[in-house]
């Protein structure tokens, strides 16, 4: 299944997907729809730009990827970059500024695109410890910001309604919890499988 999937995802197709997604996200009507509510802005537009970036990472030729990897041992620099981008973009002012300042909007989208590419290029190389450290920082931060968004009596963004903000807050907490559970489940599955293969191998080993 995964081999077939990998064979279907040729660099050309990934490039086309990145381009199509990028054009769609930059298209004014789609942008206006995505940014009309706070939750779509943060929970739909942000991940979609990152997805476009992740597709883009598949286009890089192996030589360039190898050169980039020398600056990204164990995926550390890439994940630091992703963490930095996500932290800065959680400042509520970004959402208001992105709506009225084209420069901030372009920077935001470019940063998310690069973060998506960096995440894909770094995740596999990172290993469980670095992955855990990264998620251990980013997910609690997301949950705390979500809690803040849903609990504060203040409207944090001038352009968005208070109930929209509260809904986004609740969903940020939910997404952070789901991602944490998914990663833990994956780690557990990996450990169980390793143990199972270890036992199967045991009789053969001296």
């Amino acid at each position, binding site marked *: 299944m995964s081999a077939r999937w990998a064979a279907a995802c040729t660099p050309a197709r990934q490039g086309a997907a990145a381009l199509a997604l990028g054009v769609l996200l930059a298209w004014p009507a789609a942008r206006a729809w995505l940014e009309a509510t706070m939750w779509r802005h943060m929970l739909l537009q942000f991940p979609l730009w990152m997805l476009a970036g992740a597709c883009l990472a598949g286009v890089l030729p192996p030589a360039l990827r190898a050169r980039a990897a020398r*600056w*990204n041992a164990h995926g*550390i620099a890439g994940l630091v970059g992703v963490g*930095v981008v996500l932290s800065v973009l959680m*400042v509520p*002012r970004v959402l*208001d500024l992105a709506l009225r300042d084209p420069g901030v909007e372009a920077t935001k989208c470019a940063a998310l695109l690069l973060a998506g590419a960096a995440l894909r290029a770094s995740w596999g190389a990172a290993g469980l410890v670095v992955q855990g450290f990264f998620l251990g920082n980013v997910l609690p931060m997301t949950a705390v910001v979500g809690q803040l968004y849903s609990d504060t009596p203040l409207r944090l963004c*001038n352009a968005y309604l208070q109930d929209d903000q509260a809904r986004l807050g609740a969903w940020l907490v939910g997404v952070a919890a789901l991602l944490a559970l998914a990663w833990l489940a994956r780690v557990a599955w990996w450990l169980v499988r390793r143990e199972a293969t270890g036992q199967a191998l045991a009789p053969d080993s001296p």
Partner: protein
Amino acid sequence: MLRTALLSVLLLLGGYAAARWLTHDFQVWTDEGARRLEVALRPVDTPRVAVEGPGVAAPDLPALLAQGGGVTIVDFIYTRCQSVCLSLGSSFQQLQAALQADQAAGRSANVRLLSISFDGVHDGPAQLQAYARGQHADPALWRFVRVPAAAQEQALLHRLGVVVVPDGRGDYEHNAALLVFDAHGRMRRVFDLAEQQLALDYARHLAGGAP
């Protein structure tokens, strides 16, 4: 590994610089906070938009603010409002009571109140007059205007940083606040609704001889 460490440090520094710029040296986290800080540092000139309202005779907003040479505390309203404007209204009623007490005590501070409607289509002079009566407004202290031309209304809201969002139920949410203007028609400070006393004290101070 050294290159990775170097790149990581550079990325962290870049993020720090971006966050610092975004939050004005970590002082504000919201755009409203940034707007208030920027206004306090650099007063904002009022655009020359035509205004009309019951008992108001001024060609434009700066001229209205210059009348009497005093300080004006401004809020933005719409007369159909049932939520935050009611608290804005009662906030302005309390300010009016404080200013009347000043006058009665013979120490008039030359501070006045002005409510500007951002629903110019609906809030004609008659609606504003009825709203003013409902608020028990003293016409000498508290006046009501609208900006009849829609384009000018947008220009005014944009310049003063007032963002109005329809809430989908026929009402609006907006960054309600108390805006203090000097006699030159410049917005000098923006206060939160909860900072009513502070806004009044600042306006009194501004009217009492500050440039």
